[in-house]
């Protein structure tokens, strides 16, 4: 094979590192998105035997937003294998113990349950906040767009922006707020 063909092959199958900001995102919907990149389903050259999955670095996984009252209702079951070793952990409890676990389990459970799954999960790098080691950040060459825009807090807007925002109605002047 000539040198040009060799490097063309190398470039086609090169592994890409993506970065994803999970703050204010639904972990279960994010999992569906991330698993595509981890398995290589976003590439037209996809094949399960091809090893074409990419790396994904997820930051702010401690700031994920579960829908509704999932924080209170969702339980994670674990059994140690020994008698009386069953534990039912609520989502908020798990999150306080390890902020990356909810998203990690979400991604794991969204994948097909085949032997590739554990190896594919190795390519997912979760960080609870934005502190990522620099040697990992140097590899990154793409950012995955967030599913839902991160809402801005009211006190983070400037006074001018708040005043100029169009109002549908306002309280009557003699109305007394409690």
């Amino acid at each position, binding site marked *: 094979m000539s040198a040009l063909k060799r490097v063309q092959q190398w470039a086609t199958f090169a592994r890409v590192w993506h970065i994803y900001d999970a703050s204010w995102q639904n972990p279960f919907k994010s999992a569906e998105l991330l698993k595509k990149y981890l398995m290589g389903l976003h*590439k*037209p050259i*996809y*094949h399960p035997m091809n090893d074409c999955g990419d790396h994904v670095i997820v930051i702010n996984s401690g700031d994920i937003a579960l829908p509704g009252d999932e924080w209170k209702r969702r339980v994670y079951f674990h059994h140690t294998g020994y008698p009386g070793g069953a534990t039912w952990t609520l989502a908020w409890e798990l999150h306080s113990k390890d902020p990356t676990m909810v998203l990690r389990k979400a991604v794991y459970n969204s994948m097909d349950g085949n032997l590739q799954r554990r190896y594919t999960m190795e390519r997912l790098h979760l960080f609870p906040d934005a502190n990522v080691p620099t040697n990992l950040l140097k590899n990154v060459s793409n950012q995955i767009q967030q599913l839902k825009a991160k809402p801005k807090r009211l006190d983070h807007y400037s006074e001018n922006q708040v005043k100029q925002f169009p109002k549908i109605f306002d309280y009557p002047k003699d109305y007394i707020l409690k």
Partner: protein
Amino acid sequence: MVFTTAINFVRARGPDEFWRKRKIFKLSAHFVGRKRNCYSIAIRYVHRALAYATKGRKLRKIDMANLWETRVRAGCEQHNINYDTFREGLVRSDILLNRKTLADLSCWEPYTFKSLTDIAKRRALDDGLAGISSDNKLDGIITKGCLNRNK
């Protein structure tokens, strides 16, 4: 001399079983262990292998079609179009390409695939299909059909 009793001792034996068993051993040559060499064990696994081969012919077609579809979906995603919208747009434009061809084009002919997605987007926008909105920049895409329709 005529031996009239000798003929009674001649037994008719069946054909040599070597050849019948050889037909099975040829098929079990790549198996592991006794399944390869011992007839009564090999015959079971050979029958199973043949049955799997028969069923697998149908499954292979299904698997290949699924793989092609996955690849076309990936290609569509790269061009910001929904797969169903893409297929519908192509069919309405009389481009009746199958999944296999579309998958090959998405891998090997990226410019051709882009032009196909453009045609599909244009048609989807004109027909008002759900997947496309006029937010997508489609002003640069003009097809012969769209000119006739706009008349």
